């Protein structure tokens, strides 16, 4: 058997796990591992400019590919800089393995230089964490970490490695385990067949059913059976912010995103439904309109499918709970439906769809005031982006108005294409996430929809993009203000714009150029599409599109807090 040091075992285990890229930043506690990286070619290391970006890049990679992203950071500040990235992944159940260096074992707890209790700091935001106590454990711990990160409800796993565990002078026999078993961890592999049958029966008898699907469908790779079931039962489908793309966004049965900034049609369809089929979604407060579920969908029975039992009946009580992987449960539902040979009543369905089509009106799920053409509307930017990219790009976003506009107007037809921080709402996420996607899909079009506030939270990564040739397109909706904060200040604080105005913005074109990229500023609505097309035609260059958009624009609809799903502002003056 081969003899390897702990440092070599870390790198070899990653290779044997099938890892191609790690995102990281070196430092004292990691130098043995970085030396082991230098002496091999199997695993490529991407050097970021800030550890938070490393975590978001790994996260973007994971969301686009479904495989765990890997982060390598040093002890102390290196580790704590990843905390926002780990929390982002945790909230959205993204598989990720974070390896952090630690001070040598006999210094742990002594307030040594660059020491932080990373296992302790990260405890509330990880699925699990390990501290290496013996170099011989390294392969098994890494195997366990990958297994935990991607099975069941996925999530981030931290491995903290004291420096002496990687000492190059201490060599041990290495073999990478083929399988690991944890007696205390057995995620469900199938849904309960009796419950599944009851669910199909309930859907067949429903008069006003709706399918409400979330990020779990994307994570669980269940887009195909979801679409098939929705079509078989002719269900209206709404996706959460995290679930966009699970069902084709351009399809007639799709009624738009639901929730706080969901479509009028989706929120009314939910409110009036008598059966809700919730798939891989968690009835988040931004979906059910607040912390009080009592007004939520008053007439609905709830079927709830989720891999995580703790997500079921957490905020909204499920009438038929089904714990299991969404892919297998939906496939079983389809099989039972076909075996039963019954169809939903055609007349009942027709009248429900007639009602939905009335709500939908002329078919525009998110109508907006196009203005007089003197200033670029942010919504129009996303519509142009959709046209220019043929609706087939990977779109990442930061957090705020631009995120909601992207979710509303870029009609995602495929899963894993829409990448945003839905749960934690992390500004600064979009750009590094786009880099993680681009690097793994070098020929794909990857655009980061952002704002002048968010982009500045990780703008240093422009340098990484140059080093590794990542031709990401940055679509900066520059309204000179923190748009969503400003919108709330307009609506609730009598337009007192407390610290929501971005003074002293940089010249983004020059900034992009300073980093060796292309910058284009667009101010004229007439030039929007042509300049955008010009930018996206530059396949091998990072282009920073700085687009001046209307500062006064608000995101609508906007649910009225404390109300029901149907209570919404539809514009600055109209409400339901």
């Amino acid at each position, binding site marked *: 058997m081969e003899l390897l040091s702990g440092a070599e075992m870390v790198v070899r285990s990653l290779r044997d796990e099938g890892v191609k890229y790690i995102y990281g930043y070196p430092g004292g506690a990691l130098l043995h591992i970085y030396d082991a990286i230098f002496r091999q070619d199997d695993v490529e290391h991407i050097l970021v400019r800030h550890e938070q970006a490393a975590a978001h890049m790994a996260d973007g990679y994971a969301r686009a590919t479904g495989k765990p992203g890997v982060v390598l950071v040093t002890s102390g500040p290196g580790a704590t800089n990843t905390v926002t990235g780990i929390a982002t992944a945790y909230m959205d159940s993204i598989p990720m393995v974070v390896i952090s260096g630690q001070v040598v074992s006999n210094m742990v707890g002594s307030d040594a230089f660059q020491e932080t209790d990373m*296992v*302790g700091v990260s*405890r*509330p935001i990880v*699925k*699990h*964490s390990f*501290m290496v106590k013996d170099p011989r454990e390294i392969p098994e711990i890494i195997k366990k970490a990958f297994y*935990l990160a991607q099975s069941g409800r996925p999530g981030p796993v931290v491995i903290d490695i004291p420096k002496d565990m990687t000492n190059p002078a201490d060599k041990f026999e290495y073999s990478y385990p083929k399988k690991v078993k*944890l*007696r*205390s*961890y057995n995620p469900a592999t199938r849904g309960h067949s009796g419950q599944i049958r009851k669910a199909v029966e309930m859907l067949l008898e429903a008069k006003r059913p709706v399918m409400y699907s979330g990020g779990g469908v994307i994570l669980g790779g269940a887009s195909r059976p979801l679409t098939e079931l929705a079509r078989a039962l002719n269900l209206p489908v709404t996706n959460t912010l995290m679930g966009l793309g699970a069902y084709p966004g351009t399809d007639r049965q799709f009624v738009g995103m639901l929730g706080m900034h969901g479509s009028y049609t989706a929120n009314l369809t939910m409110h009036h439904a008598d059966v809700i089929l919730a798939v891989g979604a968690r009835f988040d407060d931004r979906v059910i309109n607040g912390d009080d579920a009592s007004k939520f969908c008053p007439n609905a029975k709830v079927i709830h499918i989720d891999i*995580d*039992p*703790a997500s079921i*009946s*957490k905020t909204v009580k499920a009438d038929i709970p089904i714990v299991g992987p969404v892919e297998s449960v939906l496939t079983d539902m389809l099989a039972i439906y076909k075996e039963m040979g019954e169809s939903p009543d055609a007349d009942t369905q027709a009248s429900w769809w007639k009602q939905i089509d009335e709500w939908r009106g002329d078919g525009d799920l998110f109508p907006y005031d196009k203005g007089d053409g003197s200033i670029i509307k942010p919504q129009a930017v996303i519509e142009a982006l959709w046209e220019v990219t043929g609706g087939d790009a990977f779109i990442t976003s930061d957090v705020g108005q631009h995120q909601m506009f992207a979710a509303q107007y870029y009609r995602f037809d495929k899963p894993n294409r829409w990448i945003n921080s839905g749960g934690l709402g992390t500004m600064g996420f979009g750009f590094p996430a786009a880099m993680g996607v681009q690097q793994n899909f070098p020929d794909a079009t990857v655009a980061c929809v952002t704002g002048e506030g968010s982009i500045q939270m990780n703008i240093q990564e422009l340098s990484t993009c140059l080093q590794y040739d990542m031709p990401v397109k940055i679509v900066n909706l520059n309204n000179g203000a923190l748009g969503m904060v400003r919108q709330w200040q307009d609506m609730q604080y009598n337009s007192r714009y407390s610290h929501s105005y971005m003074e002293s913005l940089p010249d983004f074109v020059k900034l992009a150029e300073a980093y060796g990229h292309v910058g284009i500023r667009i101010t004229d609505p007439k030039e929007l599409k042509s300049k955008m097309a010009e930018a996206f035609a530059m396949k091998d260059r990072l282009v920073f599109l700085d687009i001046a958009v209307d500062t006064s624009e608000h995101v609508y609809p906007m649910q009225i807090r404390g109300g029901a799903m149907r209570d919404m502002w539809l514009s600055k003056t109209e409400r339901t």
Partner: protein
Amino acid sequence: MRHIISVLLENEPGALSRVVGLFSQRNYNIETLTVAPTEDPTLSRLTLTTVGQDEVIEQITKNLNKLIEVVKLVNLSEGAHIERELMLIKVKATGAQRAEVKRTTDIFRGQIVDVSASVYTVQLTGTSDKLNSFIEAVGPTSVLEVVRTGVSGIARGEKVLSI
């Protein structure tokens, strides 16, 4: 309602902090907590008591089950069970009180395990309610110091919590 949740936990460093962290993180309440290794040294048995609505208790057990180190758990309050808590209590024992404390201890089937000129130290085992009653019976003004272990519990009959 009060619930007794009994947990088999991997006997590993950091496992307990995850259990305790879960309670503070999710704003659940712990009233008592006791933990010690079992006959199998790789496992610890942890008993905790908590108070909450049924939906909250359901979330507590679900979230405990999600912790990787939690091997198995049972909500003992859902079935017939035995609960015990041990208390060491120092009570003033002077004059007429000396005999009275001795009598009360006998009635509660406790034992006086240490004696000094003015103090008895009493050891008492039972349900939490019984221990509370003893404190009341000797009178709170006589009580000098109380140490309680927190509740341990086990299901009645054939049911066992094991792997």
